[in-house]
C-alpha cells in the first residue's frame, strides 16, 4: 500500500504472467478489459456475419438465399448479439474498464473482484443465448414484443431471454463499479470539473445502466414466466395489456441507446482536443450535456410507440420530450466543432475516425428529428428509415468512436504502434462503406419499405442493391483493423509513453502501464485538456 521500502514495480501488466490463470483469474482491470475486448470482438463478428447474410438475402427482392424462418432468426441474432453482447458493453467494458482507474489516478476499480465476476456473468449469459441460437434460433426480433414472444413463437425464446437477463447483471455490476470508483477513488486534487469528459460520460452511462437495466430484467422475467407458467400480465386474453411490455421494454431500451452512444461522445471529446492541440471548447457545457442526456434519455421512450395504440396525448408528451433531448446533443456537436478552431490539426488515424464520427453522428442525429416529429414518424416508423437512423448513431457513431478510441489508446494498452498508413486506409474505407450501406436505407424507408422484410416489392430493388454493395466495403473496413492491429502486437515498433503528446493521467504512466498503474500516486493540479499550440503554429505574443 505505502510506497516505502519496496522499489516501484516497473514490469508492465501486459508482460506479467502469460498462463491462462494469470489472465482468466486476474482482478487487474487492465487484464479484464482485454478479456472483454476479445469476447466482444468475437460477438461483433458473429453479429456482423448475420448482418452479411441479411444483406446478401436483401440484394434481390425474391427469397433466394435463406427461408423466411431463417431470415427472421438471422435478424434476431444480429439484433440481440449486437445490442447486448457488443454495443452495450463495448466502450465501457473495454476502454472504460482499462482507462477509468488510469484517468482517475487510481490503482484499480473500487471492486476489482466484482469486475472479474462481471466478465464471467457476461460470458455465462451471452453463451446461454448463443446456445439458444445454435440449438434452433429465436425468431421474435431483439425487441421480444408480446404476444408474439409469449404466445406465438415456437423458438427458444425463454433461453435467449434468460441469457440476456443474466448479461443484465453484468451490466449492472459494471455500472455500480464505475459509479463508486468515480466517487471514491479520484486522485488528490481531481475535482469533478477536472475530470476528463470520457470519465463524465462513463459516469453518466453507468447511471443509465444501473437505473434502466433492472426494468429490462423485469420485462424479460415476465416473458419467461408467461412462457413457463402462463402468467399473462401481457396477455389480452387474461385481461393483461401487451402495450405494458412495450412501455417497460422501451423504458430500458431507449436509455440503452444512450448507454451505447455516451461513451462514444466521451472518446471523441478526448481525441478532438488532442489532435487539434486546443482545450475542449465549452468543457462545462459538454459535461453538463452528458448528464442532461442521461436524464432526458429516460423521458422519451414513448416515441417508439406513436402508432402502437398509446394515447394521442401520451404521444404528444413523448414527442415534446424527444425534441428536448436534441438540445444537449446539439450542444456537444457545436462544441466539438469549435474545438478545432484556431488549432494546429493533424490527421492521425484516431482523428480520422473521430471526424468520421462527427459527420455520421450529425446526420444520424438530424434523422432523429424526423422520427420525433409525430406526423412524419407515423409514416417512417417501422420502416428502413428507422434502421438507417439508428445504424447511423450506433454503427456510424458508436462503432466509429470505438475504433477511434481503440486506435488512440492502443499504444497505451499494448505498448506497440500500429501501421499508420493502414489505419488511415481503414478509417476512410469504413466511412465510405458505411454511407453507401446506410444512406440508401433512408430513401427506402421514406418510400415505405417496412423493416424485417424477407422479400419486398420490386420498386425497392435498386436501393437495396446499393445498400448490399456498400455492406461489402464496410465489411472490409472492419476486417482491416483486425489484421493490422493483430499484426502490431508481434511485429511493430514499441510505443513511447505518450505517443500523441496528450494530457490526461493515463499518459503519465508507462506504455503499457505497470500492474498498479502508477509508480507514485499522481496529483492533479489543473483542468484537463491543457493543450498548447506547437512552436510552428504559435501566434506572435499578443500585445
Amino acid at each position: 500500500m505505502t510506497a516505502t521500502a519496496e522499489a516501484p514495480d516497473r514490469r508492465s501488466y501486459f508482460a506479467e504472467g502469460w498462463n491462462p490463470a494469470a489472465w482468466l483469474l486476474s482482478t487487474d482491470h487492465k487484464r479484464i478489459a482485454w478479456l472483454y475486448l476479445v469476447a466482444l470482438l468475437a460477438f461483433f463478428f458473429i453479429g456482423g456475419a448475420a448482418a452479411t447474410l441479411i444483406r446478401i438475402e436483401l440484394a434481390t427482392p425474391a427469397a433466394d438465399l435463406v427461408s423466411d424462418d431463417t431470415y427472421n432468426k438471422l435478424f434476431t441474432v444480429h439484433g440481440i448479439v449486437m445490442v447486448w453482447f457488443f454495443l452495450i458493453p463495448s466502450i465501457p467494458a473495454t476502454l472504460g474498464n482499462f482507462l477509468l482507474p488510469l484517468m482517475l489516478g487510481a490503482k484499480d476499480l473500487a471492486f476489482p473482484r466484482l469486475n472479474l465476476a462481471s466478465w464471467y456473468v457476461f460470458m455465462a449469459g451471452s453463451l446461454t443465448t448463443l446456445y439458444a441460437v445454435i440449438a434452433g434460433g429465436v425468431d421474435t426480433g431483439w425487441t421480444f414484443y408480446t404476444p408474439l414472444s409469449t404466445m406465438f413463437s415456437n423458438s427458444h425464446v425463454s433461453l435467449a431471454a434468460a441469457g440476456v437477463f443474466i448479461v443484465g447483471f453484468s451490466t449492472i455490476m459494471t455500472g455500480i463499479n464505475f459509479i463508486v470508483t468515480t466517487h471514491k477513488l479520484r486522485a488528490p486534487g481531481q475535482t469533478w470539473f477536472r475530470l476528463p469528459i470520457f470519465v463524465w460520460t462513463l459516469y453518466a452511462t453507468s447511471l443509465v445502466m444501473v437505473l434502466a437495466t433492472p426494468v429490462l430484467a423485469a420485462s424479460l422475467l415476465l416473458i419467461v414466466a408467461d412462457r413457463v407458467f402462463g402468467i399473462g400480465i401481457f396477455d389480452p386474453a387474461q385481461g393483461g395489456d401487451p402495450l405494458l411490455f412495450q412501455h417497460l421494454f422501451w423504458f430500458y431500451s431507449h436509455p440503452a441507446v444512450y448507454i451505447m452512444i455516451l461513451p462514444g461522445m466521451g472518446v471523441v471529446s478526448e481525441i478532438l482536443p488532442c489532435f487539434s492541440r486546443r482545450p475542449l471548447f465549452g468543457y462545462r457545457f459538454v459535461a453538463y450535456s452528458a448528464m442532461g442526456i442521461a436524464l432526458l434519455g429516460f423521458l422519451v421512450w414513448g416515441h417508439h410507440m406513436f402508432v402502437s395504440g398509446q394515447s394521442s396525448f401520451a404521444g404528444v408528451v413523448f414527442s415534446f420530450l424527444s425534441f428536448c433531448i436534441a438540445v444537449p446533443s446539439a450542444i456537444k456537436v457545436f462544441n466539438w466543432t469549435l474545438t478545432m478552431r484556431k488549432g494546429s490539426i493533424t490527421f492521425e488515424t484516431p482523428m480520422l475516425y473521430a471526424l468520421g464520427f462527427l459527420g455520421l453522428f450529425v446526420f444520424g442525429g438530424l434523422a432523429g428529428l424526423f422520427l420525433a416529429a409525430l406526423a412524419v414518424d407515423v409514416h417512417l416508423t417501422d420502416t428502413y428509415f428507422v434502421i438507417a437512423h439508428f445504424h447511423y448513431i450506433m454503427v456510424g457513431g458508436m462503432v466509429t468512436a470505438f475504433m477511434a478510441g481503440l486506435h488512440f489508446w492502443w499504444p497505451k494498452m499494448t505498448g506497440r504502434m500500429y501501421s499508420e498508413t493502414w489505419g488511415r486506409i481503414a478509417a476512410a474505407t469504413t466511412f465510405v462503406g458505411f454511407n453507401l450501406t446506410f444512406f440508401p436505407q433512408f430513401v427506402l424507408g421514406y418510400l415505405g419499405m417496412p423493416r424485417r422484410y424477407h422479400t419486398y416489392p420490386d420498386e425497392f430493388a435498386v436501393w437495396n442493391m446499393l445498400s448490399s454493395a456498400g455492406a461489402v466495403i464496410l465489411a472490409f473496413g472492419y476486417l482491416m483493423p483486425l489484421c493490422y492491429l493483430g499484426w502490431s502486437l508481434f511485429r511493430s515498433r514499441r510505443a513511447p509513453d505518450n505517443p500523441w503528446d496528450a494530457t490526461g493521467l493515463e499518459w503519465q504512466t508507462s506504455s503499457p502501464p505497470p500492474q498498479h498503474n502508477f509508480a507514485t500516486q499522481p496529483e492533479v493540479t489543473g483542468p484537463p485538456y491543457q493543450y498548447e499550440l506547437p512552436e510552428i503554429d504559435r501566434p506572435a505574443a499578443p500585445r
Partner: protein
Amino acid sequence: MSAEAQGHATGVEPSGEFGVFVFLVSEGLLFSALILGYLVARLAPGADFAAGSRELSLPLGTLNTAVLLSSSFCIALATIWGSERSRWARLAALATVALGIVFLCIKGYEYFEEAQKGLLPFRDMSDRYPKAEPQHLRLFFDVYLALTGTHALHVISGIGLVGGIALFWRRLARPAHTLKLAALYWHFIDVIWVFLFPLLYLAR
C-alpha cells in the same frame, strides 16, 4: 462533499456501503417495474381486479409480515452486536436466517393452498375454479405470483448471503462489516414486502 473531494482519502468502508445502495437502487427499480404491472391492472377502469385479494389468506399474510419484520429486527441486532465484537452477532444472524426460512415455508404453504383452489397457473384453472368468470381473478393471481415469486427469490438469496456469512464467520476478514452490508440488503427485502403486503393482501 469535503471528504468527497479528497478522493483517495476516504477509505474502503463507505465505498462498500455506497456500492450496496447503488445496487439497491437497481433492485428497487426492478420491483417498481413489476408493481407498475400491478398498478396498470388495478387502475384499469371497471375491472374488479382487487377482488382477487379476498381469495388470499389475510391471517397468513399478516403473520408472514410479522415474521419478516422480526427478521429485520434480528439482523439489526446482529449488526449492533457485530460492531461490539460480541459473540451474539453470529447467533442473531442465524436467527435471521431461521426467520427467513419460516417466511418461505408459510409462503410455500399459501401457494400450495391457492394451487389446490385452482387459483395459480400451476394447474389448469378452467376445470378447478368453480366460478364462471375467472378473468379478473386470473390476472390478479398472475400479478400476485410474479410479485411474490420475485420477492421470494430475493429472500432465498438473502438467506444464502446471511447464512454464508454466519457459517464462515471466522474465515472472513471483516465479518461484522460484511454482515452490515448484507443487512442493508435484508432490510431492503423487508421494505419491498412492506409494500407488497397491503397491495396484495389488503386491496380487498
